[in-house]
C-alpha cells in the first residue's frame, strides 16, 4: 500500500540520514564554507556580473576611485577607506557565494548519482511483447517515448512511467529517504525518476523526459542557482533600492557645490565614503543571498521549488486546499468506541469484535484489536490459538469479514457494513434490536463509520441470530492540526478540506479539525472549480496533489505542490515537488515564503535606519571645521574626523558579515496577525537599526583612534 509511504506531519522531525550540505549547528554555515566561498567572492568582483546589483556596483566604482586617489596621494586614511570599501564589496559577494555554496554541495551529491549509466533500450516494445529486442545505449541518449528495461540492482536511466511490472525502488539519491518505495505500472504510482535504483523485480519504463531535462538535471540547476531569476518582489525592491542609491548619490554630488559656498569643500575620498555609507549597502549586499537561502530552506525540507516566483507566491497564499486523508487525518480510521445493543454485555461485544478482527490485517481491523485490549483487557489471541476457527475474509460482495468457530454450539461472528450485517442476521432468522438503526445513523452523522457486529449460534435449539453491537470507527485528526489551522487563521489564511466523504461526515471532521471550510464528495472538476472561484475573488490558492487527475488543478493553483510519489503529469503541472510526499508540508512552505519576504523587509528597514547614525558620525566630521556649531552633532564623541569616517565605513562593512547568518537563516517567523508581526519587526529591525550603529560606530572608533597615522 504505497500510501503508507506518507508519514504524518513532521514539522521539525529528525534530520535526514544523508548529509545534504555542510552546516554547523542551528543551520548556520560553518567557517569552512566561508573559506571555500572566498575565491568565488573575489571572482564576483568582475564588474560585468556585479552591475546586476546596482548598490554594490556603486560601491565598487567608489572603491576603484579611492584606490586611484590613494595611489596618487597616499595617506593612512585614504588607504584605510580604500581597503574597507573593497572589503564591503567582497563581503557582499561572500554572502552570495556562501548561499550558493550550500546549493553547490547539494548539486555535487546529486551529480554523483547521474554517473553514466547504460540503458537497456527495448526496440519496438509493445504492451505484452514477450521477448523484445534489447539494445544497450548510453543513458544520455535516451529520448521521449523510448522504452527501457530495468532489473534489480540497476539504476533507472531516465525519468519515466512504468508500463509493465512492479518493483521496489530506492529513491534515497533524491529524497534522502532510505526506505524503499513501491512503484508499479498503471495508476498514480507509476512514475520513476532517473538516478534511482531498482531493488527488486523487473520493470519496463517509458522515458518521459528529453536528455538534459531530467528531474535530476533540473534539480541540480535549481540548487546551484543557475536557473535563478529575480522574482517580482525582488525586482520591485531592487527598484526602490536603486532609486535610494540615486538620491544619495545626488546628495553627495551636490554637497560639494553646497559646501563650496562656505569654503568647506571635501576631499574626494570623504565624499565617496559618505556616499557608500548612505546608500543601502546592507540590504543591497544581502538581497540575493536571502533569495538563494530561501530556496535552500525549501530544499532542506525536501521541497523543490521550480521557481523563486513560486516561493514568493507561497507567502501570499490566501486559501489552502488540503486533502483530508493523510493531511488532516491519519491515513486510516481507528476504532474509537464499542456500543452494545439489545442488552449485550459490553465484554461480550468486545470479545466478539476482537475475534472477528483477528485475521483482519487492515489498519481498521488492527485498531479494533487494540481497542478491546486497552478498554476491556482482552488479550489478543493468536490465530492458531482458536480451535476449529475458520476466518472469513472481507470481500466486496459480502462487505463483511469474520470468523466461524466450530465445535458444539457452532458460532459465527461477522462484522461489516451495517446493511450487510443486518441482512445477514435476518437471513439467519434473527431480528436486530431496534436501537441498531439510530446508533448507526448517529455515528454516520457524527462523521464516523459504523461497523455492525453480528452473531449466529447454531446449537441444539436451532439457530439464533442477533446483532451484538456497533463499532464506531472514526477518522483520527492528526495531533496539533487544530492549533496549526488556528495559526493559519491568524495569518489570514483560510483552509479548505477536500474529501471524497459525504457532506455529513466531511462536516463533522471539518469541525473537529478546525478547518474553515470543506469540499465534500470532491471530484477533480469540483476542485478545479473551487480554485477558479477563489482566484476570481483575487485570492491566491495553494494545494497539494499526486494523481494525474490532480494535474489541471495543480497547474491552475498559484502554488501547486506535487508529491514525489505522484505521477509525472502531476509533477509537471505543479510548481513545487515535495520529495517526502508529505502534504502537511504545504503549511511549512507558506511559512518559508513569508519568512523570505519578512527577511527582505527587515533588512531593508535596518539598512535605511542605519543611515541616521552614519550622518551623525560623518557630517560633523566633514564640516565641523568650517561650521564649528556642527561639532554639536558629534553626539557619539568620536575621536577625530578621520577616525569617525573610518569607523562608519568599517561598521558598514562589518554589519554585512554580521548579518550573513541572519540572511541565510531568515528572520524568526512566528505566525501572528499582520499588525503583530509588523510591530515586532519594526521595533526589532527599525529601532534596532536606529540604535545599533551608534553603539557599533562608537566601539569601532575606540579602537580605530589608536591607529598610527590617522589624524
Amino acid at each position: 500500500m504505497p500510501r503508507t509511504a506518507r508519514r504524518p506531519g513532521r514539522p521539525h522531525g529528525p534530520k535526514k540520514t544523508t548529509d545534504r550540505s555542510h552546516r554547523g549547528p542551528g543551520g548556520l554555515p560553518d567557517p569552512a564554507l566561508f573559506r571555500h566561498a572566498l575565491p568565488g567572492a573575489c571572482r564576483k568582483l568582475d564588474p560585468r556580473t556585479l552591475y546586476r546589483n546596482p548598490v554594490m556596483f556603486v560601491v565598487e566604482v567608489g572603491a576603484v576611485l579611492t584606490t586611484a586617489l590613494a595611489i596618487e596621494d597616499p595617506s593612512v586614511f585614504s588607504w584605510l577607506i580604500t581597503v574597507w570599501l573593497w572589503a564591503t564589496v567582497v563581503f557582499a559577494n561572500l554572502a552570495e557565494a556562501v548561499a550558493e555554496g550550500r546549493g553547490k554541495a547539494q548539486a555535487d551529491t546529486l551529480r554523483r548519482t547521474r554517473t553514466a549509466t547504460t540503458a537497456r533500450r527495448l526496440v519496438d516494445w509493445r504492451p505484452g511483447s514477450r521477448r523484445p529486442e534489447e539494445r544497450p545505449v548510453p543513458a544520455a541518449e535516451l529520448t521521449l517515448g523510448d522504452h527501457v528495461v530495468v532489473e534489480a540492482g540497476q539504476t533507472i536511466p531516465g525519468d519515466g512511467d512504468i508500463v509493465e511490472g512492479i518493483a521496489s525502488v530506492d529513491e534515497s539519491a533524491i529524497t534522502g529517504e532510505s526506505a524503499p518505495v513501491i512503484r508499479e505500472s498503471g495508476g498514480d504510482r507509476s512514475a520513476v525518476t532517473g538516478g534511482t535504483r531498482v531493488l527488486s523485480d523487473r520493470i519496463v519504463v517509458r522515458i518521459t523526459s528529453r536528455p538534459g531535462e531530467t528531474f535530476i538535471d533540473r534539480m541540480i540547476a535549481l540548487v546551484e542557482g543557475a536557473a535563478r531569476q529575480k522574482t517580482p518582489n525582488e525586482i520591485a525592491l531592487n527598484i526602490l533600492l536603486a532609486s535610494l542609491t540615486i538620491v544619495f548619490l545626488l546628495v553627495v554630488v551636490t554637497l560639494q557645490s553646497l559646501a563650496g559656498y562656505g569654503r568647506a569643500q571635501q576631499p574626494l575620498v570623504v565624499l565617496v565614503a559618505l556616499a557608500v555609507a548612505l546608500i543601502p549597502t546592507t540590504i543591497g549586499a544581502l538581497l540575493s543571498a536571502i533569495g538563494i537561502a530561501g530556496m535552500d530552506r525549501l530544499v532542506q525540507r525536501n521541497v523543490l521549488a521550480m521557481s523563486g516566483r513560486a516561493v514568493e507566491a507561497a507567502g501570499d497564499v490566501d486559501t489552502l486546499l488540503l486533502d483530508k486523508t493523510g493531511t488532516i487525518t491519519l491515513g486510516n480510521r481507528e476504532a474509537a468506541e464499542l456500543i452494545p445493543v439489545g442488552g449485550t454485555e459490553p465484554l461480550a461485544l468486545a470479545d466478539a469484535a476482537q475475534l472477528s478482527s483477528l485475521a483482519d490485517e487492515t489498519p481498521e481491523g488492527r485498531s479494533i484489536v487494540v481497542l478491546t485490549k486497552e478498554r476491556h483487557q482482552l488479550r489478543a489471541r493468536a490465530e492458531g490459538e482458536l480451535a476449529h476457527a475458520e476466518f472469513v475474509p472481507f470481500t466486496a460482495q459480502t462487505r463483511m469479514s469474520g470468523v466461524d468457530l466450530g465445535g458444539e454450539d457452532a458460532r459465527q461472528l461477522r462484522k461489516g457494513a451495517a446493511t450487510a450485517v443486518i441482512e445477514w442476521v435476518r437471513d439467519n432468522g434473527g431480528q436486530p434490536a431496534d436501537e441498531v438503526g439510530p446508533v448507526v445513523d448517529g455515528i454516520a452523522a457524527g462523521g464516523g463509520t459504523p461497523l455492525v457486529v453480528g452473531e449466529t449460534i447454531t446449537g441444539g435449539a436451532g439457530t439464533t441470530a442477533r446483532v451484538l453491537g456497533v463499532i464506531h470507527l472514526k477518522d483520527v485528526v492528526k495531533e496539533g492540526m487544530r492549533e496549526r489551522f488556528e495559526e493559519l487563521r491568524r495569518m489570514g489564511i483560510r483552509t479548505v478540506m477536500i474529501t471524497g466523504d459525504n457532506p455529513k461526515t466531511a462536516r463533522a471532521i471539518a469541525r473537529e479539525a478546525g478547518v474553515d471550510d470543506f469540499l465534500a464528495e470532491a471530484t477533480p472538476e469540483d476542485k478545479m472549480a473551487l480554485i477558479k472561484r477563489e482566484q476570481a475573488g483575487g485570492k491566491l490558492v495553494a494545494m497539494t496533489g499526486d494523481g494525474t487527475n490532480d494535474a489541471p488543478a495543480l497547474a491552475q493553483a498559484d502554488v501547486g505542490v506535487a508529491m514525489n510519489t505522484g505521477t509525472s503529469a502531476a509533477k509537471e503541472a505543479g510548481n513545487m515537488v515535495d520529495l517526502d510526499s508529505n502534504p502537511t508540508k504545504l503549511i511549512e512552505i507558506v511559512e518559508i515564503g513569508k519568512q523570505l519576504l519578512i527577511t527582505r523587509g527587515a533588512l531593508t528597514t535596518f539598512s535605511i535606519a542605519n543611515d541616521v547614525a552614519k550622518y551623525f558620525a560623518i557630517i560633523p566630521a566633514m564640516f565641523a571645521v568650517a561650521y564649528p556649531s556642527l561639532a554639536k552633532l558629534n553626539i557619539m564623541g568620536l575621536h577625530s574626523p578621520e577616525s569617525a569616517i573610518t569607523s562608519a565605513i568599517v561598521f558598514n562593512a562589518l554589519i554585512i558579515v554580521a548579518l550573513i547568518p541572519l540572511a541565510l537563516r531568515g528572520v524568526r517567523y512566528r505566525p501572528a496577525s499582520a499588525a503583530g508581526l509588523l510591530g515586532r519587526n519594526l521595533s526589532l529591525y527599525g529601532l534596532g537599526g536606529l540604535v545599533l550603529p551608534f553603539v557599533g560606530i562608537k566601539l569601532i572608533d575606540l579602537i580605530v583612534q589608536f591607529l598610527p597615522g590617522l589624524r
Partner: protein
Amino acid sequence: MGATLAGWLQILLLVSVLAASYRPLGDLLARTLTDRGHWRVERALYRLGGVDGDADQTWPGYLRSLLAFAAVSVLFLYGFLRLQNHLPLSIGMPPVPADGAFNTAVSFATNTNWQWYSGETTLGHLAQMAGLAVQNFLSAAMGIAVAAALLRGFTRRQTDRVGNFWTDLTRITVRVLLPLAFVFAIVLVAGGAIQNFHGVREITTLSGDTQALTGGPVASQEAIKQLGTNGGGFYAANSAHPFENPTALTNIIEIYLLLVIPVSLPRAFGRLVGDQRQGYAILTVMVLIWAVSVAIVTANEVHGAGSPAGHAAGGMLEGKEQRLGVWASALFAVSTTLTSCGAVNSAHDSFTPGGGGMLIFNMLLGEIAPGGVGSGLYGILVLAVVAVFVAGLMVGRTPEYLGKKLGGREMKFASLYILTTPALVLVGTASAMASRGARAKVLNTGEHGYSEILYAFGSAANNNGSAFAGLAAGGTWYNTALGLAMLFGRFLPIVFVLALAGSLARQRPVPVTAGTLPTHRPQFVGLLVGVVLIIVGLTYFPALSLGPIAEALS
C-alpha cells in the same frame, strides 16, 4: 488678553472650524468626483471645448489632456503678460520682460505662485484678474483632478481607464472652487479687504510723506489664492499687506481657507475607497506633522527673542506684522509652507534660525501635511505606497495597499516620484552655489545666505511659492532656473502619479484578510510619519546642516 492665550485660542478656533468642514466639504468633493450627471453649464462648456464629458480616458490620455491644457495655460498667460500694455485696465503698466513672463506664467500654471516681482508695480488689473486669478482656479483644479485619477486607480478594478480630465477639471472648478471662492471673497470684503478698480493713488501720510497706493480687485483674488493653495499675492507684501489681510480675523480666515481643501480631501479619499478609517489615518499623519511643526516654530519665535526687550514685545517681532503678532505669524507660516500655498503674512527670512529652518524643512517634506490641493493627497499616498511596501514585506506578503498589489511597476513610479523633487532642489541649489552671478544675489552672507538659496529652490521645486526674502530672485538666471524647477517639480510627479494610477487600476483587487497589513491603525500612522521624516530627513540632512542646522546650533 495675553499673546499666549490669544495664540492658543486662534489655534483652537482654526482646528474647530477645520474639523467642522471636514465632513461636508470632503463629501462634496467625493460627490463631485464620482457624480455621473452633468450640470447644464458644464455641458455648455464641454460643447464649447469640443470634448465628450462622458468619455473615460486611459492614463496616457488623461496625461496628454492635462499637459496640453497646461501648455496652453502657460502660453496664454505668457502672452497676456507680454502684451498687457495693449489690454484694458492695465493702469499704465509696461509689458513684463520675457524671462519674467516665463517665470510667472509657469509659476501660476503650476500652482506655485512664486513671485519675482511686486504685483502692484508690475501688473495691471486685467492681468491679475483674467490672467493670474484664472490660473489660480485651474491649476488648483488640476491638482485635485490628478488626485482623483489616483483614487480611481485604487478603487477601479481591471480597467485601463482613470477618468476624464476635462470633466474633473470643469466640475472641481464649477462645483467646488467657484462657489467657495465667491462666498469667501465677500467674507473678506466684509472683513476689510479691498475690491475695486482704482489705479495708483498718491496719498499723504501723517508724517507728511507721500505714498503710492494701488487699488484693485483684491478680495476676489485673495479668496482663491488661499483656497487653491496658490499663494500669489496681489501685492508684494502678500498677506502681510493690510489691503489683502486687514485684521486678525481675516488672518484666521485666510489660514482656514488655505488648509480647508487639503485637509478635507482625506475624507473624499475615505469615501471613494469605501473605508473612512483610511481617510482618518491619512488625516492623522497630516495633522501630526502640522501640529509638531506649529509647536516648534511657535516655540522658536516666542522664546527665540533672547533679550528682555524681545520678550516684552512678545517674541521675535522682526519681519512680522504688529497687528497680527508672533503666534498668528507662526501659525500662518507653518500652514503656508506645509500646504504648497506660499502666501505669507510675515518675512520668513526674519524668523529665528530654528523657526526658519523648520519652514524650509516643511517645504522639503514634499508638501504633504496637508499639502497643496490635490497634490498633498497624491503626494502622501505615494509615500504611503513606499511605506506599505517596506512594512508589507515585514508581514510576509507581497505588499498591498487598499487591495492593490505593489509590484515592480508600482514601485518604479513611486520611486521616480520621490526622486524627482530632491533632485530638482539639490541640483538647483548646487548650481546656484556654483554660479558666481547667482551667489551674488544673496542679501546675507554665511549660513543665512545659503538658506535663502536653498529656500528658493525648495519652494520652487515643491510648488510652494513662498520666498525667504533676502534673495533678489529676479533676473534671467533665477527666473529661468526657478521656472524650470517649478515646471519639472509640478509635471514630472504628475506623470508618475498618473502612471501609478493606471497601473493600479489595471489590477484585480486582493481581498483583505487577517494577514493583510492594516493601514488604518495608529501603528500605520506612526510608520508613515516615520517614513516621511526619514526619507526626507536623510535626503536633505547634509544640505540642511550647512545652513539652517549650522545656524540654529550656533
